[in-house]
């Protein structure tokens, strides 16, 4: 299986992280999408954007405080 599509939204301000997420899930329709962000606000917005479109979200935070949000459908 190929690497899942990844969006690096670190440092981007509202609404770009959630907007890029929505654009990607609309394109993909199903599968796996990974979004990176360093902001707790964006983390929540990305998670909510995914869930509104029926995707499941799994979130881990790595040592340099980057959130890895894995969306699947």
């Amino acid at each position: 299986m190929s690497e899942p599509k990844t969006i690096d939204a670190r440092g981007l301000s509202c609404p770009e992280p959630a907007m890029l997420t929505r654009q990607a899930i609309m394109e993909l329709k199903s599968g796996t999408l990974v979004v990176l962000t360093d902001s707790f606000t964006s983390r929540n917005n990305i998670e909510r954007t995914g869930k509104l479109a029926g995707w499941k979200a799994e979130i881990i935070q790595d040592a340099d405080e980057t959130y890895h949000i894995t969306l699947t459908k």
Partner: protein
Amino acid sequence: MRAISNFLISRWGPIVTGIVVGILAPVLVALGNPGNMGICVACFNRDIAGALGFHRAAVVQYIRPEIIGFVLGALVAALLFREFKPRGGSSPLIRFLLGIFAMIGALVFLGCPWRAYLRLSGGDWNAIPGIVGLFAGIGLGIIFLKRGFSLGRSRPTAQPAGWVMPVFVVVLLVLLLAAPLFGRDAEGNPVGPIFFSQTGPGSQYAPLWIALAAGLLIGFLAQRSRFCTVGALRDIVLLRDMHLFNGVLALLVAAFLTNLVLGQFKPGFEGQPVAHVNWLWNFGGMVLAGLAFTLAGGCPGRQVFLSGEGDADAAIFVFGMIAGAGIAHTFSLASSPTGPGAYGPAAVIIGLVVLSIIGLAMRETRSA
């Protein structure tokens, strides 16, 4: 404490913040703030600019404690929940320019989005073309966003960059309390450096500590809930997400009911406080402001709250608004209750041209 934070981050957060703002703003009017101006982030920054002598419109000069509270309330919330993160470097000069034009647009209308909704809830129907203009401006901003507009990435910075705005508002509080008068006019009378209106909206204010406390509470709640009056509509269009718009609806309902209870609901077009009846420029001013706020990523309140949690880019925007207030009043751009300023309409058109160029030209390679 953690439970409160989780609640404010949930879908109820913006709603609770909207209700608190909707109740407190009319109460602040009852306690002395200008009519339908319990809270206005643009007007209050304009009053601060006047108090500092950046413009000399004698009727709009006062250091508004609400703004000080907004920054410090957001700072406390961000520190408590480990979200205070100094950051910056996302097109600061462009953000400064956006702040200038946001303020010019808001002063042609006579209010920021917060006050547009508060004016509506007080029965000032002149707010309707303003809100339509706000929606149009946000719509324009969304078009640019969809075409790839971006101000680029911010980066973590060293601590001092995040502390500039919190320290600035503490200095403002000291200046408000000390009210130094060591300047002298030609006749030797003491004037400035801090100016306080003797008449007009700047002379109308709620008691200092109540205004500060209200600001602190709203700043705290809004930092947690990300309350934003521009993101509200933007997220519906762009993300099909009602999360923030629910907060605006809550604000409208709460403010309407509070105004009714306090006898402050006075429906009509004529004779509304700190408002004019020129529908075209009520509309036009807010198109410009709405576009500027959308390109900058949030309403003026949100920019102030972000500046309290270490966002130097948001702080630059707020300083741009203060500079914009100086420009608006010295160049006769700001409206008055009699109508638009002499050059206000021209400034709105110039602003729309400049912001359209920025909207089209600022792009970032933002894919991974």
